[in-house]
């Protein structure tokens, strides 16, 4: 049996930089220092007017193709996680198959999830591999929340950044614990706490339709589900906190992450916070952080890394990855 492993991860940021100093000028009284202290974010990047999630996804995939041993002609499944597709129809996955020149005999699918989306994607990818339906999976995340944000809403403008990522997942014969310990959760009763009304029901550019976030509700939700998911994922694998080499949680807000770290009891040196220069990039935050950890030399072969995504939905998921 083939076990699925992450073989390589790349991320891409758009070019428009939004610094805290810029936000301070836009929102008098909302000082750059305060934003950094409260969110752990110094700058975030947003897509240009004519740049969309498809473009961020394509660039991330091109980086992966240029820098890893992946053979694009061998990719037999393409999963795209986005909540801000360039068009409603057809899917981003279908467009990417063409623009990236991927095989026509490919399983290609979009799915709509936010901050939990990367872990769900790893689950889909490893299931396709374990069931023999695919051997080489390209998992893509891409979002441009900047296009659905009310530019006057400083609580979301200061948090979210646009980005895309591409992850190569492949089966390794005879070894089955590359990605395991999956835990999932959904609570649609909290749907309104982080939502955007834009869609077929509500169309136009009205601020009413923009992304709105109830910070305290989202915060309370994470306090409940994240420590529990971490514990359940470890328990499924018969592991303890001490068996994990690195914890990579969805990079929601550095302040919130620090609180979760202490609440769960994770040592500081095993906890990754990598959002200072990107902001909260939704479904891309975990792969972006993994890439950052790799660049910083923090990832070593054989390491066990616990991933946990949580947010819009409300939706959450966790798993443990064994780094190749």
């Amino acid at each position, binding site marked *: 049996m083939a076990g699925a492993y992450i073989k390589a991860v790349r991320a891409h940021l758009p070019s428009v930089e939004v610094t805290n100093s810029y936000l301070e000028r836009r929102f008098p009284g909302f000082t750059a220092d305060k934003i950094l202290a409260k*969110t752990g974010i110094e700058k975030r990047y947003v897509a240009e007017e004519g740049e969309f999630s498809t473009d961020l996804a394509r660039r991330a995939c091109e980086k992966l193709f240029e820098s890893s041993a992946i053979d694009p002609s061998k990719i037999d499944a393409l999963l795209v996680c986005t909540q801000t597709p360039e068009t409603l129809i057809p899917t981003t996955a279908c467009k990417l198959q063409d623009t990236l020149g991927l095989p026509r005999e490919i399983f290609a699918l979009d799915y709509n999830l936010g901050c939990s989306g990367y872990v769900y994607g790893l689950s889909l990818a490893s299931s396709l591999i374990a069931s023999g339906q695919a051997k080489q999976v390209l998992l893509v995340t891409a979002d441009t929340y900047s296009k659905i944000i009310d530019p006057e809403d400083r609580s979301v403008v200061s948090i979210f950044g646009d980005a895309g990522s591409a992850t190569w997942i492949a089966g390794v014969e005879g070894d089955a614990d590359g990605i395991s310990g999956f835990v999932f959760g959904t609570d649609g009763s909290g749907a309104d706490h982080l939502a955007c009304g834009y869609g077929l029901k509500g169309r136009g550019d009205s601020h009413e339709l923009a992304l709105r976030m109830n*910070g*305290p509700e989202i*915060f*309370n939700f994470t*306090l409940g589900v994240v420590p529990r998911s971490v514990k359940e994922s470890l328990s499924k694998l018969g592991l303890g906190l001490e068996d994990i080499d690195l914890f990579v949680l969805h990079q929601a807000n550095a302040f919130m992450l620090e*609180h979760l770290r*202490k609440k769960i009891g994770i040592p500081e040196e095993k906890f990754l916070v990598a959002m200072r220069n990107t902001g909260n990039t939704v479904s891309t935050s975990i792969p972006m952080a993994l890439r950052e950890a790799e660049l910083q030399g923090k990832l070593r072969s054989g390491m066990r890394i616990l991933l946990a995504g949580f947010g819009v939905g409300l939706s959450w998921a966790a798993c443990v990855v064994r780094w190749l």
Partner: protein
Amino acid sequence: MEIQDLIRLIAEELGVDESLIKPSAELAGLPNWDSMSVLGMLASIDEKFDLQLDVSRLATCKSVADLMGLVNEAGSGS
């Protein structure tokens, strides 16, 4: 948790002297009070007292004393 504990916690979060915060003080009128300070306060209450408030009712809390009521409800498990 007593009201003075809550006042101390709010004062720390807002970076003001606790003697300036009275139980009758309006939350919205406190210096530096905004959505981010609310998150900080929720985190402190969770960390120091292991209590999670019913935040859907936060908006109905006008004063520090109202907030204390919500904290007490969380503490009594209701």
